């Protein structure tokens, strides 16, 4: 598979950019079969108009196969990495809403923060992310992991409200704080949090601790030692992931509390945070 780098053109002032771009057309699986000219001609929806990729990005072939790199602040670009299924999708900057939505495989690395509905279901779809891994160096907005069915979301920063709402399965790690209504209507899946969340006693069990080898397994199998080496072009300040590892190390030592729920939907999900 060919790899490409798309760099947001520096000669476009932020005020000239549309308020909202639909980035669903930016797909590694499609771009890997295209020429540079074809990629430049791909049209994105911007507000109510269409705009060619070449007018927004400088397109160049990447030395890394099976990798699509987007460089720049893409906060106004929604659905980035939507439906990503194989290979690596790397964003060196922020992304908008619904990033990694309905992703089913591969890896999605974001050296910035995301808007709302990260990896969530969208439109009439019943399920969100169903496989693969999303790593976010910054923070994520509301409803991250909404209706997530499988896969991993790993966030070095914090999350706002409704994290993992209606989650069906999968793992979400938030290394820092989370907002309200965490795990709302979650059925299964694991939420690993850096700080204790406000959980309703009616919906979640009293916190308990138990011995398990699982976090030791996770700590080793996520291969943190390889993470930075895989992105030599991204500075370690940008792709900061140290808090993720620190949290997992605490959990692996067995210093955690766990609540199960959401009982309102007969859920058996788990929310885990380190002991104070």
């Amino acid at each position, binding site marked *: 598979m060919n790899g490409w780098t798309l760099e947001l053109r520096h000669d476009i002032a932020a005020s000239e950019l549309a308020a909202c771009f639909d980035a669903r057309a930016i797909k590694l699986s499609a771009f890997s079969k295209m020429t540079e000219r074809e990629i430049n001609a791909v049209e994105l929806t911007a507000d109510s108009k269409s705009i060619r990729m070449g007018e927004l990005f400088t397109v160049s072939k990447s030395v890394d196969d099976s990798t699509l790199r987007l460089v720049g602040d893409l906060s106004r670009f929604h659905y980035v990495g939507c439906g990503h299924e194989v290979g690596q999708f790397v964003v060196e900057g922020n992304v908008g809403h619904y990033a990694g939505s309905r992703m089913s495989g591969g890896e999605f690395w974001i050296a910035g923060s995301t808007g709302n509905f990260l990896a969530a279901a969208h439109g009439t779809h019943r399920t969100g992310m169903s*496989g693969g891994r999303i790593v976010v160096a910054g923070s994520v907005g509301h409803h991250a992991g909404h209706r997530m069915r*499988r*896969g*991993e979301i790993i966030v070095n920063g914090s999350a706002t409200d409704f994290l993992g709402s209606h989650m069906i*399965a999968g*793992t979400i790690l938030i290394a820092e704080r989370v907002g309200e209504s965490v795990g709302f209507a979650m059925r*299964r899946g*694991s939420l690993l949090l850096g700080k204790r969340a406000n959980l309703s006693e009616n919906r979640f069990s009293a916190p308990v601790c*138990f*011995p*398990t*080898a*699982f976090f*030791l*397994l*996770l*700590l*080793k*199998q*996520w291969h943190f030692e390889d993470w930075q080496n895989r992105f030599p072009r991204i500075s370690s300040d940008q792709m900061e992931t140290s808090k993720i590892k620190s949290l997992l190390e605490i959990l692996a030592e067995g210093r955690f509390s766990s609540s199960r729920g959401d009982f309102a939907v007969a859920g*058996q999900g*788990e929310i885990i945070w380190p002991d104070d």
Partner: protein
Amino acid sequence: MNSPKLNSPKHRGGVEIDSTFAEAFDMKATRLIITANDRTWAMAAATSMVGFATSVIACGIEMAIERVRTPDETPDGRLGVSVLAFAVSKTEMEKQIVSRAGQCVLTCPTTALYSGIEETKPKSDKRVAIGKSLRYFGDGHQISKVIDSRRFWRIPVMDGEFVCDHDVPRVDGIGGGNFILLGKDVDAVLGASRAAVDAMRKVEGVIMPFPGGVTRSGSKIGSKYAKLVASTNDAYCPSLRGSRLRESRSGDSMPPSPLQLDESVAMEIVFDGLTPANIRSAMRAGIDAACHFDHGGGLLRITAGNYGGKLGRHHFHLHEVV
């Protein structure tokens, strides 16, 4: 098993090496890694799991501890023990592994059970179930987790959670590697056998499933009793040397004993390996160690068992190996 000599014997450390070959067979194999909070529990589970697994003839599977694994070598970073398993069919392999994992590892405090065979790309569809079957013990409270396309199960148990792989790859292995040590007295032959087994245990990918790695009851295929699939290897029983000679003189079809007059003890080392190279390395290490053991002249000869090359497609010639 027969032991046809092909050429003139070689000598090593004063011990005669027959010009013959060990005949080995294709088997289904896998490696499992058991980890635990400490060596005691990892070893307890492994010892229990490989119990009564000396021979496929009556145990259904051949298993033994391969070696202790350092935390760097285990999936969860705890100390572990790897075991190898060999069976004649995938059905028997799965039946044995699931029941042994369920009764010997799941039950043992603090343990976890993982695959020890490296995954291929694409993933092999030859699998042996572990968590796929054991998860039902969780009675609905079990949790599935997929990490890098590898599915694990977390099953709630009374000390927390039992973590295991969903399934493990099954590979083609080789069973029935062997050589036979012949000598004047039990102490000399056993000492040499122990030295051989100690050396062979250092070879990766090989197990010696019999007690202490040695068997004194080598077998041949079939019996005068119809129900038995195997019976004593009378050719190497010193007590039958005389009768075999008499029967032979009297015109009976039984060939004379391959034991020479001063050879009154025979011990067989049977081993299974993941690859032909593993078998050769183990054989070389074992024979070398036995010949150089201080047996006081009690170890006289080393030979190997085969069926004339008719049954197994792997032939390990002693002279080539040493």
